[in-house]
């Protein structure tokens, strides 16, 4: 049988795990979607910059570039600067537009023109101190530019339109640069046009994109939490209903077994009276029938008291009546009961019981039921020719009883259920008669007296039960 409390706890843990799993899954999906969108947006931004710079490159006449680079032609420089300014001014976020060419040093480029090259001092002097600082100066034709930190500029930009791989962030803004080659009539790249664009709006857009993803996660978590609470509540109601049903069933069992106990006892007494000849002498046939009926009556009586014990344990009404118990005579009586059964089944019954044992404070009925149950089970589940050992010892104020058999053993997967009510191992269920109450009651009886019971078993080889009971 199952333990409802344990089951309920297990299901709450399972529900919480599922909820956690859902949250992790939803968060992962949202995060992946967000990162995917962010990457797409970045790609689109890069495409936009490439489009601008590619289109701008078509505006530049390569002959003007050559004239400025090689002859320092002022008219061509004016044309280039004007075109660069047009490009810069046409695009809202474009900060710088410039043309550069390669030098003999692969890590240094040379400016040909910049949109600000011809700007007057008053425009360049951004802090209005009357002096053009280095950082305020506009690049002039021939000015070097080191590109060690710009991998795109080192090579790629002179072959095809290119863009920075990542955003560059400084204290003022987030920027990205793009470049496109300027080609001569033969199609050779003679210079590049570059643009630096502030992309603060990109960050805002990314954050804007993140909002629905965040809402998605929050909504999903809320939804899942609500549903989990609903499921847990529903489950608790069911568990409560099952618990009540279980209690009512135990109550019924208790009532039925109580009601059965009296008539069964009466039948036993009347049969005893008949057998004793109180109602007249019986012939041999009649005596045989009466003996058979007494055996059946005994079994019935045992079953009823077992059911009664089961319901007492279930309802927590087990009453332990500890009294002085002479262990010597106690074990003597048990052995006397088991011996004939072992002989009949041709099982070797080996006893190792101290000759003299002290008095113990134990419940006689429950202790007897436990030990006798373990021994009769051992005999019952051991095939002919097998062995059953019963070792008893007194140590540290405890009674130790070990019952070992060479029977069919308990399958490993079922070992944690074997003390359950009405549970019987699968290898014994159809092979040997039984009701599955014995070990349940034995465990209840031992634990109610402050003792312990456990076992070791290997399927096909046998089982050993260990019982420890405090003497006082």
């Amino acid at each position, binding site marked *: 049988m199952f333990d409802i409390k344990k089951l309920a706890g297990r299901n709450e843990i399972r529900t919480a795990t599922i909820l956690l799993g859902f949250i992790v899954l*939803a968060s992962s999906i949202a995060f992946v*979607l967000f990162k995917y*969108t962010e990457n*797409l*947006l970045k790609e*689109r*931004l890069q*495409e*936009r910059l490439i*489009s*601008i710079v*590619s*289109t*701008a*490159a*078509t*505006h530049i006449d390569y002959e003007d570039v050559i004239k400025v680079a090689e002859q320092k032609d002022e008219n061509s420089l004016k044309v280039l600067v004007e*075109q660069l300014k*047009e*490009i810069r001014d*046409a*695009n809202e976020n474009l900060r710088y537009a410039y043309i550069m060419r390669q030098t003999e040093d692969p890590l240094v480029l040379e400016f040909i023109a910049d949109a600000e090259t011809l700007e007057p001092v008053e425009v360049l002097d951004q802090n209005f101190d009357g002096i053009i600082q280095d950082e305020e100066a506009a690049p002039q034709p021939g000015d070097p530019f080191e590109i060690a930190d710009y991998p795109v500029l080192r090579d790629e930009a002179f072959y095809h*339109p290119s863009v920075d791989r990542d955003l560059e962030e400084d204290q003022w803004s987030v920027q990205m640069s793009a470049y*496109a080659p300027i080609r001569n009539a033969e199609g050779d790249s003679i210079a590049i046009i570059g643009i630096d664009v502030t992309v603060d709006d990109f960050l805002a*857009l990314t954050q*804007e*994109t993140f909002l*629905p*993803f965040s809402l*998605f996660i929050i*909504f*999903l978590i809320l*939804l*899942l939490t609500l*549903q989990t609470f609903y499921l847990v509540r529903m489950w608790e109601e069911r568990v409560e209903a099952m618990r009540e049903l279980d209690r009512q069933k135990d109550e019924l069992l208790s009532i039925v077994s109580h009601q059965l106990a009296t008539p069964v006892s009466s039948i036993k007494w009347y049969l005893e009276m008949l057998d004793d000849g109180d109602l007249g002498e019986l012939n041999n046939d009649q005596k045989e029938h009466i003996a058979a009926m007494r055996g059946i009556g005994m079994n019935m009586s045992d079953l009823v008291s077992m059911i009664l014990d089961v319901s007492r344990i279930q309802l927590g009404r087990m009453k332990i009546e500890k009294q002085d118990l002479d262990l010597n005579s106690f074990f003597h009586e048990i052995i006397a009961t088991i011996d004939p059964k072992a002989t009949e089944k041709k099982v070797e019954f080996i006893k190792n019981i101290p000759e003299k044992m002290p008095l113990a404070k134990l419940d006689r009925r429950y202790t007897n039921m436990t030990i006798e149950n373990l021994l009769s089970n051992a005999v019952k589940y051991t095939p002919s020719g097998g062995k059953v050992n019963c070792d008893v010892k007194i140590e540290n104020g405890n009674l130790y009883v070990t019952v070992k058999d060479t029977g069919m053993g308990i399958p490993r997967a079922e070992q944690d259920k074997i003390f359950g009510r009405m549970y019987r191992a699968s290898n014994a269920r159809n092979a040997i008669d039984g009701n599955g109450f014995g070990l349940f009651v034995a465990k209840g009886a031992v634990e109610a007296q402050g003792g312990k019971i456990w076992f070791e078993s290997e399927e096909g080889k046998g089982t050993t039960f260990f019982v420890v009971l405090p003497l006082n």
Partner: protein
Amino acid sequence: MGALAFSILVIFYVVSYHREEILKEQIGERLMAIAVTAASQFKPEDLEQLRFAEDMKKPVYQRVFEQMNEIRNSNKEIKWIYILRPTDQVNVWEFVADADANYFLDVSDDINLNGVNEPSEENVFTGMKYYSENESLLVGLKKPSYTKDYEIDQWGTVVTGVAPIGSGYVLGIDMGIEEVLN
């Protein structure tokens, strides 16, 4: 569980729709950036000389035509590039130049070789009237803009970026729906 799955689907749809809208907007902004950068290469005084189909033979048209093709060649995703001027009639525009129109090109050609000259295969020419309710074109006379949704005409379904050239011309740049969805 059904309600949960349904809710997730709805949210997923909304988020995907939102994402697609943002991406479409990004493409529109890209087309607008191309248009605005390209627009500075054309002079209104040049375009003033282009009024009728016969003007397509003028050197100024050839220069504009070449420049448009150069811009399109630099931006492979562009489908159409053209310059329009408004007319006296509402929503009626006039083609000034087009990267696919020239005096030596057929006005109508059976491009898909099905034996029929379909409207989508019809070519344009300088002075040809064009009816469009696309509001972005009107906005484009004053400032750079782009269509917020797909525009449909006889030449297909497109997203358009526009920018003014001077005060009387609009440079239009179209990207086809196939390219947008890619």
